[in-house]
């Protein structure tokens, strides 16, 4: 029983990070109807940023979120303005290919700059854990989860309480109507992509202490982000939050009981089942 609770709790903790990448993806999709296949590569950029902030300047990986998020916001805004903006009216397939290309460029530039070596960011608390009765939870994962909760809450507040947040949600609900109401939908696209990238960057910073850092690490995060978003419902932010935690738990529990080699198989099988049985996701409106 303790093993089950242990793996469920670990799953919830790591699920927070999947939720962050998923929320970024779903925000971009909601506002622009573009599926960003480079989401995981943005996580990778965030990981490298955090790694170098730590190894060169000694910035704690969890503090570095304060730097990586604005920097990644800028990167995202530039990518949107220079590339994504031009294909907003193109075929969905071409949009997907463009973002796949962006991802390839990011990961291969990282390989040129940093080689394909695996890097490890080890802090003084990297391998420590907090005892909780018969259960032990890893300290970096707890920090990671707490910061995730703060970021997600801040994002909700921004989207629900501020005028700009209202404009973002209006654009996601109905682009034309939002435009008629005086919302600058082009700027909303830049904002959404910037926010999506910032969330990916935050996720990268938060997992940097617990993951290997290498140029192709993004692929796995991209796929997880899709699973999370499809599970929760495309375009639904609450759905993505829920989806992230569910996928984290599914992965952790199946890893415990079937062996770590099979945990991703379980995740993808769940993904296919959701696509086939409830393609709108748990909380999404059908957009098929």
């Amino acid at each position: 029983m303790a093993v089950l609770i242990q793996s469920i709790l670990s799953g919830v903790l790591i699920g927070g990070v999947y939720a962050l990448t998923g929320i970024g993806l779903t925000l971009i999709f909601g506002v622009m109807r573009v599926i960003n296949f480079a989401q995981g590569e943005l996580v990778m950029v965030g990981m490298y940023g955090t790694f170098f902030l730590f190894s060169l300047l000694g910035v704690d990986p969890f503090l570095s979120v304060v730097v990586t998020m604005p920097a990644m916001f800028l990167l995202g805004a530039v990518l949107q303005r220079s590339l994504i903006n031009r294909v907003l009216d193109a075929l969905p397939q071409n949009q997907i290919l463009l973002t796949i290309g962006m991802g390839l460029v990011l990961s291969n530039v990282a390989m040129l700059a940093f080689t394909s070596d695996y890097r490890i960011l080890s802090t003084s608390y990297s391998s420590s854990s907090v005892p909780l009765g018969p259960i032990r939870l890893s300290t970096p994962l707890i920090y990671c989860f707490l910061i995730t909760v703060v970021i997600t809450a801040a994002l909700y507040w921004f989207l629900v309480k501020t005028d700009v947040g209202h404009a973002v949600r209006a654009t996601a609900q109905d682009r034309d109507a939002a435009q008629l109401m005086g919302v600058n939908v082009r700027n909303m696209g830049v904002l959404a992509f910037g926010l999506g990238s910032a969330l990916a960057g935050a996720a990268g910073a938060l997992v940097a202490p617990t993951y290997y850092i290498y140029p192709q690490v993004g692929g796995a995060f991209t796929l997880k982000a899709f699973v999370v978003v499809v599970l929760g419902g495309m375009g639904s932010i609450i759905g993505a939050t829920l989806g992230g935690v569910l996928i984290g738990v599914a992965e952790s529990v199946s890893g415990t009981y079937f062996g770590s080699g099979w945990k991703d198989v379980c995740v993808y099988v769940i993904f296919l089942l959701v696509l086939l049985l409830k393609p709108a996701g748990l909380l999404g409106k059908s957009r098929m």
Partner: protein
Amino acid sequence: MKRTFVISVVAAALLALVPLFIQSPYALHIFILFFIVVALGESWNILGGFAGQYSVGHSAWYGIGAYGAFILLQQKNVAPWFGVWVGVAVAVIVALAVGWITFRLRGPYFVLASIAVAEIIRLLALNWKDLTNGAEGILASDLPPLKLGGTMITDWNSKTPYFYMGLLMAVFCIAVNYVVKGSKLGYYLQAIREDQDAAHSLGIPLTLYKNAALGISAACTALAGSFAAFYVGFIEPQGVFGIDVSIQMVLTCIIGGIGTVSGPIFGALVLVVLTEMLRASLAQAHLLVYGVLVVVVILVMPEGIVGFASQRLRRRKAAAA
């Protein structure tokens, strides 16, 4: 059409003469790579180009074909040119099963499902160690000599036999595209690509014809994939089932011109030449070329080289008239 047919036959015949004049293994290697990329691009084109179903999981069929032939060679000592057909058959069966389930999905959802399927199959290959040898992969060090009625044809010790096999493979895949495009099946597929709902309301059974395209596409991919794997002589899950393999197939068609028979040939030419030119300076990061190319092509000429050229040609004709 007749003229293009004559040009193609002459081009293939000229290519067949190449090994008589060029002995440099490196030059032959480039030709073989080119044939492989053409064959794979043409294979993807049947489903992605004609039917408009953008699969980014075609590495699944590539890998199943390759693993089928490699496992039979290693464990049962079956010669590749027989084993390959088992690989192709397995790939087609799995593809049809997957297609039956995933073809109800559209657009981005289909793309995502195709990636997930390839990823599941990659993880199976990684974890099913008794059959696939897991991450260590399988080595096909020496192939049995190819004999026909007692006479030795080749012992596979030079690049030349691979050159002819590759050429044959590429010509075969181009021919399949040519036949499919002009057939009833081809017209149905193009109708589905242009407007799925309109095609459906005209009474075209969508899933059936998409599956027909997938079956043919998967068979060609498995065939070309196992040839490519034997040329390299080694397979492991990431190398054959990785998303790079699928992306390369998509790119070949995007660059050349999606849904055209000649597109993948031009796409392969650009890809192979650029990759080889930059291989030394980029080393492991050779996929950078793919990334930059796809971004540029989508932004500058989304119709690909063939689409771009024919548009120019039409405009010039219109200007002259």
